[in-house]
């Protein structure tokens, strides 16, 4: 009986160890628990993305000007990757407007922009988390009276452990060369 318990205990230990090791490093953005809901209405925590290199940014769906450029930037980076590299990169766009960015609104953008949702995730946080996630990513924003946002834009590259390894504020269809190199390097090493 004791031996059986010992075996069970050992199995638990072996099985559970990876889960306990899930404590992210101190310089990981995954120190912040961040519940999100994606374009398909699926709830998840961004810490589940640990293990894969991520390209993260903030946007909102009713934005007419700069936010489409953020999507363009992500697409431009993808275009310069091989199929293997592409498959290893997650793209996560977090809304700064959770009140209006319902899964339906997020879905609409994903469809209109022909985003492959096996790699791209458009998600809304809880209202109380928006400032924190923006703080982590170094993005500033203010809701204007007309419902638009005044905001800075950034693409942030996270390694598999959630460490910020590069960022760029240059948006558009021509990727920032240094940033692009960092993406390639991260995908090659992780």
């Amino acid at each position, binding site marked *: 009986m004791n031996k059986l318990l010992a075996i069970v205990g050992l199995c638990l230990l072996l099985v559970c160890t990876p889960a306990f090791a899930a404590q992210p490093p*101190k*310089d*990981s*953005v995954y*120190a*912040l628990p961040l519940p999100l809901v994606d374009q398909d209405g699926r709830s998840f925590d961004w810490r589940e993305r640990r293990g894969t290199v991520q390209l993260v940014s903030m946007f909102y769906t009713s934005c007419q000007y700069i936010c489409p450029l953020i999507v363009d930037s992500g697409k431009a980076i993808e275009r310069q990757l091989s199929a293997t590299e592409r498959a290893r990169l997650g793209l996560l766009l977090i809304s700064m407007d959770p009140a209006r960015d319902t899964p339906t609104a997020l879905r609409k953008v994903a469809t209109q922009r022909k985003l492959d949702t096996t790699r791209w995730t458009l998600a809304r946080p809880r209202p109380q988390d928006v*400032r*924190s996630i*923006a*703080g*982590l990513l*170094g*993005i*500033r*924003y*203010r*809701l*204007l*009276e*007309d419902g638009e946002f*005044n905001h*800075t834009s950034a693409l942030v590259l996270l390694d598999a452990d959630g460490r*910020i390894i590069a960022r760029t504020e240059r948006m558009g269809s021509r990727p920032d060369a240094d940033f692009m190199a960092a993406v390639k390097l991260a995908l090659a090493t992780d």
Partner: protein
Amino acid sequence: MRRLAALLLLLPLAGLAAGGGDYVKLPGGAFRTALKYEDRTGPTRIAPFAMMRTPVSNARFLAFVRTHPEWRRDRVASVMAEPRYLSHWAGPVSLGETARPDQPVVQVSWFAAQAYCEAEGARLPTWDEWEYAAAADETRTDARRDPRWRERILSWYSRPSNAPLQRVGLQAPNAYGVQELHGLVWEWTEDASALMIAEDNRNQGDADNARFCGAGALSMDDRDNYAVLMRVAMLSSLGARDTTANMGFRCAKDLP
């Protein structure tokens, strides 16, 4: 006349004694901000709220760190607090000579301030709330048009920031019963990252010096409210994990 002034000075104290506790209620209302928002045409509406009477002290923050060890300086996530976080304390859970219990806590990041308030069932004040509360002097809820009041604030700010900080609760309360909104430490607001006035100074050296020079980048036609604009310049140049030797905070609450 002198007696009247003395009476007026006593009034907020009386209100404070009656109110008790660490939070003071502010009535809110229509408020004229010193800032120029292109999108905001009318006066700012401030809902009634409660605000801490004084900035959070080292003693209080130490108690928080003891009950929330993830905010100890040796355990904190580095994405939420830069290396100088609580660096003036003697140890992770001890204050020492350079951080007396009744001095305001400084070298705290926005994340840490936010977490403290959340643990109290409170939040950081918004900029609007802070500016509204800070417009008052000891007798008037809006003293901003008084040149002597403005002079007083500016002379506080011109004191060198490497002198030891006074203890909290030393100043006379303002007309709302709130103390030390001026003349002690800078304070975080919940929406500090909404203040996007200066150029982005993120890459310019030390937060206590270079970032502060971001104030020069402000275009200000309202020199009367220079002190408020200095605050904004400070907040708009800091990131959420940054800490400085004169940046503290206090919490606020919605009123039911």
